[in-house]
């Protein structure tokens, strides 16, 4: 079974999760046999493209474009290349882009789709994967019955593994028809250089216990020292204290960082739904009965305003050691 990975690009490079997807595909190919093929669409530098081979992609395809086709055309372009590459397993990142494109591709291929998977299949004949359901409150083993199988891997759950191969690298152009669209882009607000919440290994998050948006300076400071992304609970983004993109939980982002810091977050079940995949949770709350301590690995009962400066100092020290 050939495996094709859709590797997203950002500012001429692969998005970080691309390497994790390739690592996963390489390990999966040990079970299924077949070739590991990465496909990037957009602008990507030669030096960067080669890196896909470090993790096991033996065929590296780049389709050049200054701008991505719309969702529907992007999906159709992928279907064309999946067929061309004779791929049977198609791998996406379990993020907004993957969730947008993968189901349209699935409709075109008549493929079963498993989103939010966190590990290799238990077996490949029948093809059985485990995924979280009920926002992490249960796990389901599902069999993907169709010929084509589409998997979306949750970030930071498999890890990036070096496994170099000698690749064939191809660059192709995209036919003009793929850029026709009924949608006209009026404006875009880009964010550059920022650590993406969905991919971050460390996340510093805060809730209503911070009392006011003016108190976020120390959250940002700690995040900056640790190379972390910032996040928040839902009421914080609903109030407009922080942007919606930072909201984690049942109705926000679901993240799987190595460390999740929760400052002044009560740990409501809907919040925990978004963070239960974190490897280590550190909670700071002045209420020793706050439910966040039921899911945390390390807990501090105390006032965020007193605890944060101490943590910042310790973090700064450890980073300069």
């Amino acid at each position, binding site marked *: 079974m050939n495996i094709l990975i859709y590797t997203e690009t950002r500012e001429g490079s692969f998005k970080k999760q691309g390497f994790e997807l390739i690592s996963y595909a390489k390990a999966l190919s040990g079970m299924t046999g077949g070739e590991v093929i990465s496909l990037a669409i957009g602008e990507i530098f030669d030096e960067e493209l080669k890196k896909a081979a470090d993790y096991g992609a033996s065929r590296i395809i780049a389709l050049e474009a200054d701008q991505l086709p*719309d969702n*529907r055309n992007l*999906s159709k372009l992928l279907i064309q290349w999946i067929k061309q590459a004779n791929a049977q397993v198609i791998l996406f990142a379990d993020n*907004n*882009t993957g*969730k*947008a494109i*993968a*189901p*349209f591709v*699935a*409709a075109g291929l008549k493929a*079963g*789709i498993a*989103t939010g998977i966190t590990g290799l299949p238990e077996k490949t004949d029948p093809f059985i994967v485990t995924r*979280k*359901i*009920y*926002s992490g*409150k*249960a*796990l*389901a*083993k599902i069999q*993907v019955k*169709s010929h084509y199988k589409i998997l979306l891997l949750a970030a930071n759950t498999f890890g990036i593994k070096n496994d170099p191969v000698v690749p064939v690298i191809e660059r192709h152009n995209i036919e003009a028809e793929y850029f026709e669209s*009924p*949608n006209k*882009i*009026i*404006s*875009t*607000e*880009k*964010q550059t250089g920022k650590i993406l*919440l*969905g991919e971050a290994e460390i996340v510093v998050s805060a809730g209503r216990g911070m009392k006011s948006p003016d108190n976020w300076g120390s959250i940002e400071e700690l995040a900056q020292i640790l190379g972390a992304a910032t996040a928040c609970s839902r009421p914080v983004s609903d109030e407009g204290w922080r942007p*919606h*993109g*930072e909201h984690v939980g049942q*109705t926000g982002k679901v993240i799987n960082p190595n*460390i999740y810091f929760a400052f002044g977050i009560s740990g409501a*079940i*809907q919040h925990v739904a978004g963070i239960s995949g974190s490897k*280590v949770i*550190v909670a*700071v709350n002045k209420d020793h009965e706050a439910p966040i301590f*039921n*899911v*945390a*690995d*390390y*807990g*501090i*009962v*105390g*006032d965020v305003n007193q605890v944060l400066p101490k943590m910042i*100092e*310790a973090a700064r020290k*450890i980073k300069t050691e």
Partner: protein
Amino acid sequence: MKILVCISNVPDTTTKIVIGADDKNINTAGIQWIINPWDELALTRALELKDAGKISEVVVANVGTAITEATLRKSLATGADRAIRVNTEPADAWTVASNLSEVVKNEPFDIILCGIESSDHNGSSVGGLLAGMLDLNFISSVSGLDIENEKLTVQREIDGEKEILETQGPVLLVIQKGIAIVPRIPSMRGIMQARTKPLQIVEATSSESMTETVQVTLPPEKGKCKMIDAENAGEVIRLLREEAKVL
């Protein structure tokens, strides 16, 4: 302009999950069913647009058995004009989308709204599958929608990046939070009116599925939380490096 809001019927988000006797489903005894939170926000926005005179009719549709009717009635009580229920117990997102696609083939809509995910199976697939089956223009991660002279202005938000697009129907929009902040709830008058609003039941045209649930289990219990004195809060940073080895 006519708008279709696809509605998923899900357990209340505070539900404690208990595994069913067959090990393949959850035990639904005593569960409080609600409108999937994203669908509720999509419905709220659709009704706001109708109030503003920009939409002529708001229709809700669900693929499910009779158990979902309370949720559809609630959608009607909130303000939807009519409801369609496709009668089947869906096996996966494919079954849901293929039955919804028949609804749309029988009755075209200018705008179709689907939530970005259903809070039960977290599949995030129905919207994209439906668009794919109908070969329809679709826009994902939509956090804002406005209509002016049949022209749609759509806001998307991904990882802090914002994009404003202009488009026209027919289009399928996959909705995330931001489209509305506070979900609309039924009024007393709405509840009365809902009793006489049409709720049409159509038989399923397809029961085909691409995936099958083999087993459902509960996740492993979490270990105990190690407490650190607030006076000594910096210690946690050392523990993250030396004990948990994650820093």
